[in-house]
């Protein structure tokens, strides 16, 4: 045990009734201050810069390395086969002879598929991704009635409003 132990000073015992009255006034004065709670749907409050929630995917950048699914602590990320057939994805994407569009870097055509029901937003997938293909954004209002919380790779590229199931 160490020497720098400090015995606490006992505070003065309050005088009966008067002490209580003092305490009441001490709390009662907050009657005249402004409330500090934020009224949520109308007033969203200030979202800190590093706050993250919803996972997004850049399919052109994804190389299908499966590191994100490995590091996900509760196995929310699974790799899923997905043929890139959307238009508008230019870099690294080429038109094959059959008319399919392919990501050349992603030979196996596997992309992450995230279960938001179990995601704890630990941001380790973002941390480990070698090409920054998977990233998290401020978007957090993803609550709605649906049967499945699992987002397919295609849904991960869309904004939250478009992913209505």
């Amino acid at each position, binding site marked *: *045990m160490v020497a*720098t132990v400090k015995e*606490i000073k006992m505070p003065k015992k309050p005088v*009966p009734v008067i002490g209580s009255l003092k305490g009441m006034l001490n709390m009662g004065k*907050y009657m005249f201050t402004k409330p500090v709670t934020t009224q949520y749907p109308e007033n969203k409050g200030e979202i800190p810069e590093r706050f993250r929630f919803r996972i997004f995917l850049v399919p052109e950048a994804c190389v299908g390395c499966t590191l994100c699914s490995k590091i996900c602590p509760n196995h929310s990320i699974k790799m899923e086969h997905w043929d890139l057939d959307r238009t508008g994805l230019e870099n690294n994407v080429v038109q094959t002879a059959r008319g399919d569009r392919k990501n050349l870097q992603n030979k196996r055509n596997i992309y992450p598929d995230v279960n938001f029901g179990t995601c704890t937003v630990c941001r380790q997938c973002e941390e480990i991704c070698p090409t920054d293909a998977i990233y998290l954004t401020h978007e957090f209002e993803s609550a709605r009635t649906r049967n499945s919380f699992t987002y397919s790779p295609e849904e991960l590229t869309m904004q939250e409003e478009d992913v209505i199931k």
Partner: protein
Amino acid sequence: MSHWIELNVGPVHPSTHGIYRFRVKLNEETVEDVDITIGYLHRNAEKICELSYFVNNIIYFDRMDYIDAMNMELAYLRAVETLMDMEVPERAQWIRMIMAELSRIAARMVGIGAVGLDLGMLTPFFHTFHEREKIQKIFTEASGGRQEVNYMSIGGVYQDFNEKIINEIREFISQFKGKLEEMVKMLLDSEIFWQRNEGIGILEPEVALDYGVTGPMLRASGIGYDIRKDSPYLFYDKVDFEVPVAKTKDNLGRFLVKVEELRQSIRIIEQCLAKLPDGPYFNPKAKKSAMLLLKGQGDVFTRVESESGEFGVFIRGDGGVKPYRVHARSPSFKNLAVVPEMTRGVLIADLIATIASVDAVAGEVDR
């Protein structure tokens, strides 16, 4: 003649923080015996830790003492870094210290507020939670998470401090000093609060040691044992603070020790902010895809001072990328075990006051 009735305090009861069940044997209003049932929040985190990589387990430790997440992470990372002989940059260590102390303040805010709440005093709880909210805002600024932060990583922290965070911490500290005194006054001004706490729930130091009780409970029994002083980790030996001790051994002593520790925490944070050096905030050996390849072999047992006492983590590594065995020595588990000893022969109201002052967190008791 034995006229007694059995009363359930918990698992679903207004005064149990978290879920555990006290089966109280009552003779009229007097508590004759208490039998504690725990395990309602058991997730077997130790098994889950064995199944996943070293780096993944941080979030499971977050969820042990969920109101004091930073210290839990720190406890685990201390063990892991000792196991792997991982160097932690100086700046990262100072940042960890600031965060650990802020987290301690945040956890104490719950504890102190809940003492009032369990005694039927509604208002201070909201004030303490407002202060806690400010700390959680700082946590969000720094890490992106409010409560289960996942801020510290193996070999450092995930994200560096910036000017905004440091300013916010400074601002918080400067207003918190006055606010703390005011909140404590709210509780201590009332003589009923004294009546309910003074001389209630006596814990003799011998009993406390016998049960392995640590933290504020032990310090309120007169034994000034604090790991931050006795076997310093991080840079706790480079900052100046005191270990408060109360000789009263009762609920009031525990409350006052917790309050005094808050003042000391503020002092520590102020010194940390003054000493915060520049430099790297992570160890490149544990970044990017190297995170999955971290290996460790051997046994380690390290301890930190969490809000409820000595939180020890035992890790045995077999040289693989996953720990072979993880065991957490949880302080709340030990602190809760002594409750029957403290509450034999008191009134039921005193039992509630004692449970409030013990402030065991169910997530940590059950793990």
